[in-house]
């Protein structure tokens, strides 16, 4: 997907603060591990992985012109490591099983409706199938009793979007300050910005914002 819009926070890179007083050592280690996520599936099969990657592209489309956040890899990692939510809806299977069943069901729905695998469908068709999942209007036997809407709202969307907004690339996009230990913040009131926070490009002030953003580190 192309995205020609001007960034709200031109030139802001939260990673420039990596060696500043905003990052402590354990934060550096945690973010380093995150950026080094293995890009191949260890929980999912090859087929599931293809479907998952396509689902991620629809749920969280990413602009061209920068490296994409490897969302499928984070979903896989979490399941591979067995990290749970701490609760499960009585109508839902465990995290891993929900994903396996959900991806298989999306694949079955794609085959039934379009006669092709989910990952090669037109984006609009992928969109449509996911919208129906959200509405709970899909009924292929492959869902095997798992409510599609619950899977979509409480498993599929959170796992993908949480992975995205845990990534420095997403923090840059929304102008989020990111790690803040030990320095924290000083200027607390409305319309106040600390020099180590992202500067927003208000109309006519794009270059000024870019200059400020070059100095957040």
């Amino acid at each position, binding site marked *: 997907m192309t995205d020609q819009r001007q960034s709200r926070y031109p030139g802001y890179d939260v990673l420039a603060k990596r060696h500043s007083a905003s990052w402590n050592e354990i934060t550096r280690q945690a973010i380093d591990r995150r950026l080094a996520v293995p890009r191949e599936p260890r929980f999912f099969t090859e087929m599931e992985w293809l479907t998952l990657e396509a689902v991620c592209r629809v749920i969280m489309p990413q602009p061209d012109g920068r490296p994409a956040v490897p969302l499928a890899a984070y979903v896989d990692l979490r399941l591979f490591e067995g990290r749970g939510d701490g609760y499960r809806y*009585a109508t839902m299977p465990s995290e891993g099983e929900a994903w396996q069943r959900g991806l298989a069901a999306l694949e079955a729905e794609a085959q039934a409706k379009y006669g092709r695998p989910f990952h090669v469908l037109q984006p609009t068709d992928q969109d449509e199938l996911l919208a129906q999942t959200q509405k709970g209007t899909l009924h292929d036997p492959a869902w095997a009793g798992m409510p599609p809407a619950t899977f979509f709202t409480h498993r599929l969307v959170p796992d993908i979007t949480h992975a995205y907004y845990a990534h420095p690339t997403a923090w840059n996009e929304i102008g989020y300050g990111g790690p803040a230990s030990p320095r924290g913040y000083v200027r607390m009131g409305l319309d106040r910005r600390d020099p180590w926070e992202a500067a927003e490009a208000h109309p006519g002030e794009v270059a000024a914002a870019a200059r400020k953003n070059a100095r957040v580190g």
Partner: protein
Amino acid sequence: MRDYGESEAVDFAVVGTGAGGGPLIARLAEQGFSVVGFDAGPWFRPLEDFASDETEQDKLYWTDRRIVDGENPIVMGGNNSGKAVGGSTVHFAMVSLRFRPEWFKSRSLLGYGVDWPVDWREMWHYYALAEQALKISGPVTYPWGPKRPRYPYRAHELNGAAELLARGAEALGYKWTATPLATVSAPRGLSPPCVYRGFCRFGCSTNAKQSQLVTFIPRAVAAGAEIRDLAMVGRIEAGPDGRVTGVHYHRQGRWRFQKARNVVVAGYAIETPRLLLASANDRYPDGLANSSGLVGKNLMTQSNQAVFGTMENEVRWNKGPPSLSITEHWNYDDRKDFAGGYCWMAQGPLPIEWVTVLTGSRGLWGEALRREMEKYNHQVGLKMVGEMLPDERNRVTLADETDQYGLRVARITYSWGDNDKALIQHALGRMQASLEAVGATDLFRQEDDTNHLAGTARMGNDPRVSVVNADCRSWDIPNLWICDGSIFPTTGGVNPSLTITSMALRTADRISRLAATGEL
């Protein structure tokens, strides 16, 4: 730290080291009792162990398996459950409020819920002690309720989000104040003043937060208590005389047994009933302390709905503690057509929390979601903490499936009642009016959130309809005690932690008194 042997009975084995267990362990040890505090989670050192990161700090939460059902299943995990020495106080938002006095007699005075077996004036005394122990930073005068002492530390300055709450409240004619918070506004011992990182709900990496880790746990250790971390208590043993004799716990790969003359359960409103139910034996087939049949019942959460909007201003709501200002207006106004009360506070969700709101409440995904998220620094919100009424159908039971220790997992069943729904709708309407008054646009409601837990082992004056007496002592088993939010008969319209801690301080005094008169 002192080490106690397993075969020699300690005076007290306390299961849980959070807002209830922590103060009790410290106060019992300070009175000369031998005490071991057990916690299923690790003992973190915040300066070395806490990252400034939402995802990394998942390690603070109770993420073991649990099943939720009912018409309004409760979201567990980071929302309300800690698995660490210090319990949920390691990641709580530090909001430290007193109950309205009438809530301790809500049945008699306000016509709903059930009365507590304690008098508010006594609680007022313990609230003051708790506020001193935690060096609460709060306003010079608190606008609601009877006179209270000054808060020990000055209030924190407001961030943009808190300022907007204040403006909205004034526009509607409601009082507001800086929120009393358990994070210091000036140095205290090894705690530096809060530096306004805004990661409070993910662990305080500077130790400004006055969690159990920097308050009662060090006091407990200094007084000779032992804190045994990574120790999951799975069963309380009861002897032939019906008294409890100690706890079975899992540590370093095997089950062990600690002898104790008294056992205190302080695991919060899910793990406490789970442990009591799982400790059933021939003599107590329905679980310990359960002759009333009420263990696990009357679970309460608190309504935690919100209204959000967008400002022209840069709010940058992630800076500072998330709830820097508050209005308790509707906790002290009884001209309402429903029972109970609520407060609301300013909000400052970090990106993952925020995307959860946008996807959960508005069903957004795709490009629409990405564009909404870009407004992050312009968002503003108000979030309620509302009283939900006790209802026996809301409960904790044991499911058939087991967790990593081989223990049956908790099944948590919850449905809102008509009163709960009426209260929520009232609050949403008032919060929306407040945001409209400050010029926020694109308003939307988060209708489904809840937070905090209470109930499941209520205290009372009658053994037929309560689990523990006013001393938090089991009616059935005299050397078994409960010291956490489980004992709440009603949950009030404010965050519960200060009441849990105050009640723990009171329980320690009661135990001391009973010991002195040979009634232990």
